[in-house]
């Protein structure tokens, strides 16, 4: 199940008839051959499920002050002799259950990751399609901007965009606005890779004769780009999107850790790590360790999936 979820965007936009086709495909075969990939997929699926159903799995709602009790603050994990049910991974200073905080933090991290990837992919694919298909000056302008942007680290661009956005929108933002700014800044810092890859594929595809056949019957350029070229350049995009999902989650965590990301009232994994960092040297290691482990495992699992996907979709390596 986890596997099909991961593969769905690539090969199965339509149901039933295509499922059999997919289960018979080389991609699926290479998936079932690699135990590591299956493990990574299972892990990713568990993370996503726990994030989506955080309200069900978490023993308390860490954002509801009524559920917090200062008497429960700074409890160690359950297996420590000081530990206490139901606080599996201990609690923080405010008596917040770390496990619950991780689940809700995971939700924020994944949300920012997915939205950031969706935004950057949309932007990058659109610009790549236009640059590759139209060519000439349009191509030159788009790709030079991309080149220039590539000389800056993505995190720097995200920080810059984040700072500018906050300055423009005024000093204090509510949680939703912060999240939007984060998605926007992550999106802007990752579109280049999509644009370059898509442009490269478009340059190959647009010289194929099926495009000539479409031009021959007088289809306008946007129709040819969307109907004919786009479906044929999505393979590599899927690989980038998967790997970038991990990168986006890390970028968000970094921004939150640096204090420009999600606020403590709606913490992501990065925010949790920042909070926990303060207690690292006073002995309450679990406050920072478990969110850190969760983040590392999530990113690792997604990266493994991305690596496998790249190999599986590349006919030369098959």
């Amino acid at each position: 199940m986890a596997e099909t979820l991961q593969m769905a965007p690539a090969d199965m936009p339509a149901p039933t008839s295509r499922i059999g086709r997919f289960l018979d495909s080389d991609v699926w075969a290479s998936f079932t051959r690699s135990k590591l990939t299956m493990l990574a997929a299972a892990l990713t699926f568990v993370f996503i499920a726990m994030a989506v159903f955080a309200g069900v799995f978490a023993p308390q709602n860490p954002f509801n002050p009524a559920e917090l009790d200062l008497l429960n603050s700074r409890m160690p994990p359950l297996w420590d002799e000081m530990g206490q049910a139901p606080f599996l991974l201990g609690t923080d200073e405010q008596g917040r259950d770390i496990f619950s905080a991780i689940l809700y933090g995971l939700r924020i991290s994944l949300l920012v990751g997915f939205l950031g990837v969706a935004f950057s992919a949309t932007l990058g694919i659109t610009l790549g399609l236009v640059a590759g298909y139209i060519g000439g000056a349009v191509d030159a302008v788009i790709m030079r901007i991309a080149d220039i942007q590539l000389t800056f680290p993505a995190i720097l661009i995200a920080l810059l965009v984040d700072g500018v956005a906050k300055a423009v929108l005024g000093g204090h933002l509510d949680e939703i606005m912060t999240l939007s700014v984060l998605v926007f800044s992550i999106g802007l810092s990752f579109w280049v890779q999509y644009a370059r890859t898509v442009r490269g594929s478009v340059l190959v595809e647009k010289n194929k004769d099926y495009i000539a056949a479409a031009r021959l019957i007088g289809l306008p350029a946007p129709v040819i780009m969307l109907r004919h070229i786009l479906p044929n350049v999505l393979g590599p995009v899927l690989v980038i999107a998967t790997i970038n999902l991990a990168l986006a989650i890390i970028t968000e965590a970094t921004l939150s850790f640096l204090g420009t990301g999600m606020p403590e009232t709606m913490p992501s994994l990065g925010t949790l790590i920042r909070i926990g960092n303060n207690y690292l040297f006073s002995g309450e290691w679990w406050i920072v360790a478990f969110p850190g482990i969760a983040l590392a495992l999530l990113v690792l699992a997604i990266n493994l999936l991305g690596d496998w996907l790249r190999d599986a979709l590349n006919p030369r390596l098959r």
Partner: protein
Amino acid sequence: MTERPFVEVNDLRRVFDVSKPWLNRVLEGGEKQYLKAVDGVTFNIAKGETFALVGESGSGKSTVARMVVGLLPPTSGEVTIDGVSMSNAADAAERRRLRRRIQMIFQDPYASLNPRWTVGRIIAEPIRAFSLIEGEKDIAARVGELLSFVGLHPADGAKYPHEFSGGQRQRVAIARALASDAEFIVCDEPTSALDVSVQAQILNLMRDLQDRLGLTYLFISHNLAVVRHMASRIGVMYLGRIVEVSEGRELFTSPKHPYTRMLLDAVPDVGMTGRQRIPVQGEIPNPINPPAGCTFNPRCPLANERCTAEIPPLRSGVACHAVQEGRLAPHIAA
């Protein structure tokens, strides 16, 4: 010929800029470079006829094909189909109507069909684009009809191109060309990617369709035997120019231009008749830097000074000084 020919191609030229990028030119020096892919090509095609352009790589035959259908704008010259100019702005409205009647079949059936589309959707696309039939049911029926027309099963419409062999894909491409009720089909090396037994199937199919539907073909090929089998008239191209135009069989029984003769001699002889042949000399020169005068002169056994200076015009079907001056010994016919 009293009425106007269906397709008129008049002094068509196409120049490609093959210069290095601007920055490289500035840093490394070097002029802008141009490639004259097509250099003054003129021919007519009557309705219901098959006119073939034959030539080796770099002869410009495919560039002509792309200009005729309007995929590539000519640098100069004009293509007129059924009285409508393909480049004149005044004819824009009529040209849109003309587009439905012109189709093309491409060389590589693996690249000419969108791999993500079902065959049925591919064939239906021209029908939808020109709004020829309304209603999904009627379109599906027409697609089925077209599929059986080209020797496939109507149910094949649900399959994807990769499920077909090369020959079957070319049948799909033909069905797509017929979908808009085209009258004029430009075929760019339609069988050169196919095996011989499959080539025979496709060539037979194309001839059958011509007989049934009265199609007009512009047939591009490097294969002289295929061209002989298909064409009623043939133009031989060399480095962007037509060097000889002739009625189909005549080109093979009494070729005039030295290049045509050389080309015919070079074709491997399947019949093993042991015919006499002149050994072939040299290779096609770099088209960026073609020889002055007649482009064939460095390889031509009959070249003289005039040939290196003057471009021979196409006169009574041949562009050759030696022929026009009567210096040509009668060819020992194959």
